[in-house]
């Protein structure tokens, strides 16, 4: 077990500066980047998720932990790219066309990164065509769509339809989330899953990948 207790604690406490410093120390001591991810960062974010489920942590704590994790990833990612190592799976995420809200989407992206996934964030107001292009070029296993507004929700269905038309639907699992969205709506538009919050999105992605 090569866990960096300092890194684990820093992420759990949402302390980005300490996470960055702990990562530097661990890397200098020769700990492999992937080992840091799998034995310190992912367990820390899993614990953050557990505390969120128990209502000991709330959205702000999730974001602080995500921020700490990101500061660590800034050091780790270039090393992984250089060595050709890859993350567990790739996720493309975006807020659908017409919707400019990104808080929920950013939170999910952050939690997924913390869960060890390679996250391609397409941003806000993402057209169905842009999702199709991203799936074609990035070859992700998962597509996540977010919408905050009831008026933009239908763009989720339009995007799923666009993936079908492009012959890409079977290649990816599609997850949706956002305040007005429900499991029922996910079923109605042909999505593979719905997540009520950022934390459960990580578990849902893992489940979908395990069952793929």
């Amino acid at each position, binding site marked *: 077990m090569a866990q960096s207790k300092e890194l684990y604690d820093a992420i759990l406490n949402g302390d980005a500066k300490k996470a960055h410093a702990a990562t530097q120390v661990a890397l200098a001591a020769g700990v492999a980047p992937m080992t840091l991810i799998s034995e310190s960062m992912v367990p820390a974010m899993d614990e953050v998720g557990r505390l969120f489920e128990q209502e000991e942590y709330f959205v*702000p704590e999730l974001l602080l932990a995500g921020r700490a994790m990101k500061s660590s990833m800034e050091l780790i990612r270039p090393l992984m790219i250089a060595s050709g190592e890859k993350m567990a799976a790739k996720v493309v995420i975006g807020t659908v066309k017409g919707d400019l809200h990104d808080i929920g989407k950013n939170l999910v992206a952050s939690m997924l990164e913390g869960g060890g996934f390679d996250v391609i964030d397409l941003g806000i107001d993402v057209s169905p065509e842009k999702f199709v292009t991203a799936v074609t070029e990035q070859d992700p296993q998962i597509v996540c769509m977010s919408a905050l507004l009831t008026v933009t929700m239908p763009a989720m269905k339009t995007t799923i339809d666009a993936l079908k038309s492009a012959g890409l639907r079977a290649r990816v699992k599609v997850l949706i989330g956002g305040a007005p969205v429900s499991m029922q709506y996910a079923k109605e538009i042909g999505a593979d899953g719905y997540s009520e919050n950022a934390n459960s999105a990580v578990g849902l992605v893992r489940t979908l990948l395990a069952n793929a």
Partner: protein
Amino acid sequence: MGRQFYLDLAAGGLCMPIGTDLVMHEESEPEKVRKDGSALARVIERAARRWGTPLAVPLMDLILEKIDLLALAAVSEADAETFHFAAPLDETMLAKLCGEQAEPLCAGSRARNEALAYISTQTDLVPIGMAIGPFSLVTRLLADPITMVAMAGSGLDEEDSEEGKLLWQCLCISEAAVLRSVRSQIAHGAKAIMVCEPAASRAFISPRQLKAGSNLFERLVMEPNLRLKAALDSAGCDFIFHDCGELIDPMVEAFAHRLHPVMLSLGCSRNLWEDARLAPKDVVLYGNLPSKSFYSDGAMPVEEVVRRTEELVEKMKTCSHPCIVGTECDVLFVPNAQDSIWKKVDAMMSCAAACCP
């Protein structure tokens, strides 16, 4: 109007959605109505008549104060929604954004004012104004507001850091922008203002940090809203407070007792009959049928709306707290789902009428 007016409405069994957006979408070109004062006034009046309420509630268009504020910083209306401040403001800009501006700059705010003037002078309805709350406006001015607020509440960041400084500057300019908006609406005839603070919730302000002694809720939410309330009080304008965010009990209690609005409008994450114990008897509770789900017959069938309406009416009667049955928030238009939404608004209205003959 005074507090008793709203208590009488509650005692009379008033039920009404916040539904002007729905009515606006019956127009052939709804988006044009937003910026056309006389058309907007007719829509607001029609909405109030339709639901038999004396309260003429405008659109819950919470972007207007941001557009007006950013216009002072030469940010166009088209760019306003996605604009965020990235660095602390210099003193000149800060003074400009906190300064006086008697008339709002954007067409939507001017239309709202014109509609208020019409309702005030041409109808027997009560002209209600609308404004985003200061804290919720802050969250729209920052790219990553939850993290910045969380940092401020965690003790991980110094208040004089760049991020910390920007947060408090944004609060300052937001409060000024909201005050300008409500003063302008009062000048055009508003007799009450609905202040909407959906970001004042546990999504933005961590209960864990509050428990650990953080004073962020006080400084970011309560203090500016208390000053806003004082401004409304001194103008003889009623203060209605709306927060459909996820709240914890101390937040509801602070809103009800310390802001002491004439009406407290809450989202469907709360049970109003339980919140009655957190509110003084002279604060009318408003809400809180789950209107954000009305678009889906699967997630929210008509029967469930009826059941929840009956439950709300009965339980509010049991706890004897004044209540106006309504919706958790503005009932928004959803493409291809208008029939479903109207069916449920109608069901809520009929059911409440049957329960309160």
